[in-house]
């Protein structure tokens, strides 16, 4: 099969998009247990940030580099507002959180429609990202390589923050055992806020990244939210490493199933595999046991 390599790349690249969309969720859903249905809309906010930056800066190349941190900030601040106004009041009430954030998602979509109009807007791809890199007869679109790179950078940065900074230690402590962490003098409120800020900010970055591939419109978030949750659930809740593996696996599966069947059948097959997998391992790929009383 002479399409093996291109398909391998397509799968990994799809995996990197899934990973970007799911990484923030792995924090907010995985670590904090908040089912945030508005996560996709934070992505949409990031995507519109890319659009606005491009309109302000003009040069597509420069604006993309500005938009990545700007998207992080916009997503993060939206997350902070959501956390401070609504989610804070309903920790440990997952069903309520789900419904409330679903409502927030619809609200944000309508705001986007009112502010930017219902039609999709165009975020142009910078010239240094158009076309493909040819390696041994294999054409790798530059945008996809760039997104792969962003995904890797985000994962590494997140890993470093969680592993090696005092902030990361606080986050992990609160997640593992909230009461003990509080007893040790950690402000769980401040930690929750920061975690939610980072998680939502990552959604913003994902939003900026996907403007390179697809449409930028009010419904952008809807197309990613389900896949993002799937990745986190399959990866094992609360495990960044699991999220990475799950994203790559789901991306590759989708690409190869799609190649040998059709895109619609591939989606079905991926779902079937996920359901079967969760029957065997309902806790997901990776899980760390702790002594905390859940």
């Amino acid at each position: 099969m002479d399409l093996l390599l291109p398909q391998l790349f397509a799968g990994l690249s799809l995996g990197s998009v899934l990973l970007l969309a799911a990484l923030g969720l792995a924090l907010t859903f995985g670590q904090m247990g908040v089912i945030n249905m508005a996560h996709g809309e934070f992505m949409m906010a990031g995507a519109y940030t890319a659009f606005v930056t491009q309109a302000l800066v003009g040069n597509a190349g420069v604006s993309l580099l500005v938009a990545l941190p700007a998207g992080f900030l916009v997503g993060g601040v939206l997350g902070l507002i959501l956390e401070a106004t609504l989610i804070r009041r309903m920790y440990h009430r997952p069903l309520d959180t789900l419904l409330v954030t679903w409502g927030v998602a619809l609200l944000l979509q309508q705001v986007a429609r009112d502010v930017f109009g219902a039609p999709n807007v165009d975020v142009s791809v910078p010239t240094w990202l158009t076309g493909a890199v040819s390696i041994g007869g294999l054409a790798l679109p530059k945008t996809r390589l760039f997104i792969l790179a962003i995904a890797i950078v985000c994962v590494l940065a997140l890993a470093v923050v969680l592993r090696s900074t005092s902030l990361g230690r606080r986050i992990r402590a609160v997640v593992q055992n909230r009461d003990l962490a509080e007893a040790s003098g950690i402000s769980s409120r401040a930690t929750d806020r920061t975690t939610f800020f980072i998680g939502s900010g990552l959604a913003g970055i994902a939003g900026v990244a996907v403007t390179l591939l697809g449409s930028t419109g009010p419904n952008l978030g809807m197309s990613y939210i389900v896949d993002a949750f799937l990745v986190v659930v399959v990866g094992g809740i609360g495990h960044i490493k699991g999220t990475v593996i799950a994203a790559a696996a789901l991306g590759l599966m989708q690409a190869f199933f799609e190649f040998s069947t059709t895109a619609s059948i591939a989606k079905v097959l991926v779902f079937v595999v996920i359901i079967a997998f969760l029957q065997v391992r309902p806790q997901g790929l990776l899980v760390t046991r702790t002594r905390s009383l859940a």
Partner: protein
Amino acid sequence: MRLRTTGTKRLGVLSAAVSAIALSACGAQVADADSESSSTSDSCVDTSGDTIAIGFLNSLSGTMAISEQTVHDSLQLAAAEINADGGVLGHELEIVTEDGQSDPAVFAERATKLITSDCVAAVFGGWTSASRQAMLPVFESNDSLLFYPVQYEGLEASPNIFYTGATTNQQIVPALDYMVEEGVESLFLVGSDYVFPRTANRIINAYAEEHGIEILGEEYAPLGHTDFSTIVNQVSAAGADAVFNTLNGDSNVAFFREYTNSGLSAEEMPVLSVSIAEEEIGGIGVENVEGQLTAWNYYQTVDSPENEAFVEAFQAEYGEDRVTSDPMEAAYTSLYLWRAMVEEAESFAVEDIQAVADGVTFDAPEGTVTVSGENQHIWKTSLIGRIGPDGLIYTEWTSGEPIEPDPFLEGYDWAADLS
């Protein structure tokens, strides 16, 4: 990153949410069936006053709002123009607007409301075939009129629906004729996974067999699909002379970006699309579709005094940056056609309109269109266009004269097995 494990509980909540969404989808089917039984054939349309009520039923929210809002805008423009011109038979148009919410069940429900409680003389709107098919039994059982402004897959002719968009022999068949003329010998078919692309591709396959075109691949993506790397890999590997694209909505953006970024181009392997109009090009990015082909019956660049007036009026109303597209023009035309039919019949009654419909004409922006009494479609000129660097579409080829609508493709031998 070690955490407590409340995973299974969270999964439970998530699956509850998923089944809730699935349930609401089932509800849609039930609502469809209900609307059929609510039959009241006595019209309550009130023609005694100075005004006459008509209904605009477009999705102003939800996923189709992107497209249907534009149709709604041009319907409003047509209504304002007609009112400024003295209305219809001396009655001022009174618009009742309903939101179809991108949901066929809502379309059926709101159509029933417009007919039975707002007592409108006719309803204008609908976009997806699913919404049209959901409304069809409502209009037939209440014996009311729907004007449907979008090109579609044909194989339908309800006496209660006037189809002002193209049927297949006014869009897809001429597009194939054009490709044959251009020497295309092999095609790759890419489409969204629902009724229109699947029907269109059946027609294309039948046509290809007759005319010796080789179909090198046929791929469908679910609506809203955002990742086209696999499909573009397959298109690229197949190396067809051209691609016939029946993708709908947002998927086009992802498809064309992937297409361009993989190094494919309009010169090398042109893509002919039947669902991309001026309105969509802005969102895809001109740089990704420049030079590609489209098949419609109207472009903003059509050179006629009627079109000049239409574009000018539209931009004066909604802004200089707005573009006009085929479905918008078809919607605009539908309101004028209804007026022409009412004035011909000198009555708002459905049976009177149906009786005089055959042969009613209107000098539309796309050119003169004529209603066919046989199938309630209209004669339309087919235009193949090429997307220019300014994001507008320029006519590359025309059928020269209006084509008689043939929704069941009865006039084509090769299509005998299709309907």
